[in-house]
C-alpha cells in the first residue's frame, strides 16, 4: 500500500478506521439522473462509491461517465474497469481521462465473459488481464509512462484496487497466491467477492495473515444482503464463484416471505460484526444489488455511521 494518492478511500484505510464502500450500477439507458439518485441515497454512509463497468457483460451507461457525475457531486468514485471490452490503448486513454477529472480510485478487473451477458455473440478483447491492468496503472502513476513507452508529466493519481474471490474453490491456497501476484503487480486494496461462507473467508484471511499479505494490501470484505430466499437459491445455484452455504438458504427461507428481506439485512449485519474481528479486514464493500436504499440502514446497524471526517 506504499504509494500515497489523494484518494479519500486510501486516507480512510490508512487512518485505521474501517472503510465503507458501496456500488452503483449504471442504467441500461442514457438516464444519468438514475446515477445521481442512487449516489444521493448512499453518499453520507460510504467513503467511496464503486461504479460497475458493464457488469455481467450487460451493456450499460459507461462507468467513466458515471464516475465523472459522482465526482461532480463532490463524492468519491471508484472507477471499475474491465479488460474484456477495450484494449490497452482505450483503457489507458480512459484512465488519463478519469484522472483529468480528479478520479483517484480504480478497480482493475478482467470482467465476466460476454457469454453471460446481453451480447453473447460479440468478440472480446482481453488484451490485458486484471493483473496487467494494475501493472499498467502503477506504471502510469509511478513512472509517468504508458505501456508503449511514452513518458508524460501529469500522472494519474490512482489508488489501485482489484477483486479477489476466496470462494472460487476448492483451492483456497491458489486464491491467496493469485492475490499475492496482484499485490506484486501494484494492487493496494481488494474488494472481495460476496461473502456468505464465513469459514472459507476466515481460512483465506488466516493464510493472508500468515504470509503477511494483509499488511501489503487492504482487504475490504464484500457483503451482499439477500433480498429473499429466491435470490439466495439463485446465487447458490446459478452464479459462478459464489458460495452460499445451505444454512444461509435455510435461514432466509425459514422466515415468512414478508420478513425475508429483513432477515437478509440482519444476516449481512451479523456477518460484518463477525468479520470486524477477523485480522486483516480493513473495511466493507456493501454491494446491495438494485437495493441501494438499504445501505444506510446496514451501515447504521454495524455502528459505522456517521463516517469519520478526515482532514
Amino acid at each position, binding site marked *: 500500500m506504499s504509494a500515497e494518492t489523494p484518494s479519500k478511500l486510501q486516507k480512510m484505510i490508512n487512518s485505521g478506521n474501517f472503510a465503507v464502500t458501496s456500488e452503483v450500477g449504471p442504467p441500461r439507458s442514457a438516464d444519468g439522473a438514475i446515477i445521481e439518485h442512487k449516489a444521493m441515497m448512499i453518499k453520507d454512509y460510504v467513503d467511496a462509491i464503486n461504479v460497475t463497468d458493464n457488469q455481467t457483460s450487460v451493456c450499460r451507461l459507461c462507468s467513466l461517465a458515471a464516475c465523472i457525475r459522482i465526482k461532480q457531486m463532490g463524492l468519491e468514485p471508484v472507477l471499475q474497469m474491465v479488460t474484456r471490452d477495450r484494449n490497452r490503448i482505450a483503457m489507458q486513454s480512459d484512465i488519463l481521462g478519469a484522472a483529468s477529472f480528479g478520479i483517484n480510485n480504480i478497480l482493475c478487473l478482467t470482467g465476466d*465473459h*460476454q*457469454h453471460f451477458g446481453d451480447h*453473447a*455473440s*460479440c*468478440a*472480446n478483447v482481453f488484451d490485458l488481464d486484471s493483473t496487467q491492468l494494475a501493472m499498467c496503472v502503477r506504471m502510469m502513476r509511478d513512472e509517468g509512462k504508458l505501456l508503449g513507452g511514452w513518458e508524460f508529466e501529469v500522472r494519474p493519481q490512482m489508488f489501485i484496487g482489484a477483486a479477489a474471490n476466496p470462494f472460487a474453490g476448492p483451492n483456497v491456497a491458489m486464491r491467496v497466491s493469485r492475490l499475492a501476484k496482484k499485490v506484486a503487480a501494484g494492487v493496494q486494496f481488494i474488494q472481495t467477492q460476496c461473502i456468505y461462507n464465513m469459514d472459507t473467508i476466515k481460512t483465506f484471511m488466516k493464510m493472508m495473515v500468515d504470509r503477511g499479505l494483509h499488511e501489503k494490501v487492504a482487504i475490504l470484505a464484500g457483503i451482499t444482503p439477500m433480498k429473499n430466499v429466491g435470490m439466495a437459491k439463485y446465487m447458490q445455484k446459478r452464479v459462478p464463484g459464489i458460495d452460499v452455504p445451505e444454512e444461509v438458504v435455510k435461514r432466509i427461507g425459514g422466515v415468512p416471505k414478508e420478513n425475508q428481506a429483513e432477515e437478509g439485512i440482519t444476516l449481512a449485519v451479523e456477518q460484518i460484526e463477525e468479520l470486524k474481528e477477523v485480522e486483516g479486514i480493513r473495511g466493507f464493500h456493501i454491494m446491495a444489488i438494485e437495493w441501494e436504499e438499504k445501505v444506510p440502514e446496514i451501515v447504521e446497524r454495524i455502528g459505522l455511521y456517521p463516517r469519520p471526517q478526515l482532514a
Partner: protein
Amino acid sequence: MIKAIPKPIEEIIENVKDCDKLLIAGCDGCVTVCEAGGLKEAKILASALRLYFTQGGKQAQVDDTSLTRQCEKEYLAQLSDRIDQYDAVVSLACGCGVQYLAEMYDKKVIYPGVDTCFMGVNEERGLYSERCQACGRCILAETGGICPIARCSKRMLNGPCGGSDKGKCEVSKDVPCGWELIYERLKTVGQLDRFENPTVPKDWTTSRDGGPRKIVREDLRI
C-alpha cells in the same frame, strides 16, 4: 496446414540446461512440411544441444525421434516404453502436439521447441502465409473465396478501410489489402453484387471469443 518456426536455440537451452537426459520429439505432420519440427529439425536440435552440453563439459544424453502425429494419442503412445528415462522432452510439434504430449504423460516435463504461428499455405519453400483464422463459420462463399478475417488487418467484414492504398494494407506495403483482393475476385467471377451487401455484425461465439472449442460428431464417434 499449421505453420510454425523453430524457437531460438538459446530459449530452448535456458529451459533444458539442467537436464541430463533429453528427448527431442519431432512431429511428421504440419511442422515437417514447414520444416520447423520434423525428424530433420529434431536431429539438428539434438546435435546442437549435444554440442552445447559437451563444450560446457557436461555429459548429457540427447536423443531424437519423430512421431507420425503428436495430436493423436495412438502415436504418442509410441513413447510410452522409453519416455521415463528422460528428464524432459522438447516437443517440436505445434502447440496442440506439445499440449497433448504433456496431457498424455502428465508427470513428464515437456518444453516447446517451436513457435506455432498460424494456419496457412506454402507459397514457396520457406515462404508461408496465413489464410484462415478458424472462426468456425465460414463466409468464403460471400467474399469470393478470400477471407477478410484472416487477410484484413482489421478483420473488417465490410471493407476496405480508408487506409488501403494502391491495393496495399495500411499496416505494411508488403501486405495486400484483403478487401481489394475480394473486390477484384468478385468482379472476376461476376459476383460484384455481393460486395455491396452490408454484412451484419458477426456472431463470434464459434471463434476464439466463445471460449475453448470442441467438435462432437456423434455420427463418427465409436
